[in-house]
């Protein structure tokens, strides 16, 4: 059994490590932002990453959006039917998707689909000493490797969230209008009356941009600080999903509270 003094010391060490980790994370984020000029000078690098992060995630995002829309249609109908207001189904589906589910579910899928691949790629680059080799050749690895991936993620995420919401609304329409038989006119007009372009859609876009920044930074940081072993890379990948998802959900609460208060 360890003495209490030792365990307090261990606790202090862990707290200090966490704070140091946070500082290193913010320093890396600052370094990426400070070197972002290359994204404008060599847009080809960014477009390559948007292709890798965005286009390849499109299928999973669209299919998930469709199924989330289906489920929202069925579950929403089940609830609204009790109050005899099935026509509000379109409003329910559109509001839940644009305000909440679109950005959040996309960010969670994005952390799993794109974040992990970013972490693994950078971690393996580090394990293979490619990053060290770059530095030897006087190429700044943050500028050449991290900055394009960061901006690729930040650009791809809002696009994916918008596609998710659009496909979800179509999914809700398929279930509500085509399968259940709600009047299509009421479905769309209730939606248009209730969804505000600035309060709902713009806030959803702001959320998705913030989540894109958060998830991409977490993924890059995890890869950048991964131990240069197979086990270290696998741990870093797990960390991306766990901290990325938690960060998205926490930020979502903060952002929603801010948007409601105004």
């Amino acid at each position, binding site marked *: 059994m360890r003495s209490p003094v030792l365990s307090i010391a261990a606790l202090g060490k862990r707290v200090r490590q966490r704070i140091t980790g946070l500082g290193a994370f913010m320093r890396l984020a600052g370094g990426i932002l400070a070197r972002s000029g290359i994204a404008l000078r060599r847009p080809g690098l960014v477009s390559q990453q948007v292709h890798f992060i965005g286009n390849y995630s499109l299928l999973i995002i669209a299919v998930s959006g469709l199924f989330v829309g289906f489920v929202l249609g069925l579950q929403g109908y089940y609830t609204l039917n009790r109050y005899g207001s099935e026509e509000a189904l379109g409003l329910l589906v559109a509001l839940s998707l644009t305000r909440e589910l679109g950005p959040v579910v996309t960010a969670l899928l994005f952390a799993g689909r794109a974040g992990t691949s970013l972490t693994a790629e950078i971690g393996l680059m580090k394990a293979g000493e490619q990053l060290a080799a770059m530095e030897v050749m006087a190429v700044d690895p943050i500028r050449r490797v991290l900055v394009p991936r960061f901006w690729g993620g930040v650009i791809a995420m809002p*696009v994916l969230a*918008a596609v998710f919401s659009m496909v979800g609304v179509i999914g809700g329409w398929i279930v509500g209008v085509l399968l259940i038989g709600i009047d299509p006119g009421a479905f769309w007009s209730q939606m*248009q009356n209730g969804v505000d372009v600035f309060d709902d859609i713009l806030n959803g876009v702001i959320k998705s941009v913030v989540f894109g920044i958060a998830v991409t930074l977490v993924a890059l940081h995890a890869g950048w600080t991964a131990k240069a072993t197979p086990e270290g890379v696998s741990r870093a990948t797990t960390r991306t999903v766990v901290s990325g998802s938690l960060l998205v959900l926490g930020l979502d609460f903060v952002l929603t509270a801010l948007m409601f208060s105004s």
Partner: protein
Amino acid sequence: MTREKTDFWVGLFVLLGAIALVFLALRAGNMSSFSFAPTYQVKAHFDNLGGLKVRAPVKSSGVVVGRVASIDFDNQRYQAVATLDLEKQFEFPSDSSASILTSGLLGEQYIGITPGGDDKMLAQGNEIQFTQSAVVLEELISKFLYSSASKEGGGNAAPAPEGAPAKTQP
């Protein structure tokens, strides 16, 4: 994959995102109800606005003719002032009256304009003289309870207040 091919697919991807946003704004949102027709502003004082909100519709005979531009409190008259943006193509006589109505039982509140008979038309900066406040449900219920209680109490109870007084003011 060549550079050009990548750029093409990325362009297509971003375009898809833009289409999704436009779809959400026009098909799911209220962007299509934004009107860019030229407008003129008139003011109206109300004793009670109820739950009226900025950008609520202004309707006449059920047709949207404008929107509520702003809501303020007039500290001289201790009344609410609503500024209405009316579309130029719709003109109303200067003795028209404005009332705050509710669409449906629990729907949103809007301003209804009932045209008067004057030859002069409302113009930029004019004020609508005849207004009717929002019906506050609690007042209505308390009046109803009060009147039914006094009926049960027989003749010696206090006389029931008259029906909701029309809150028109000069």
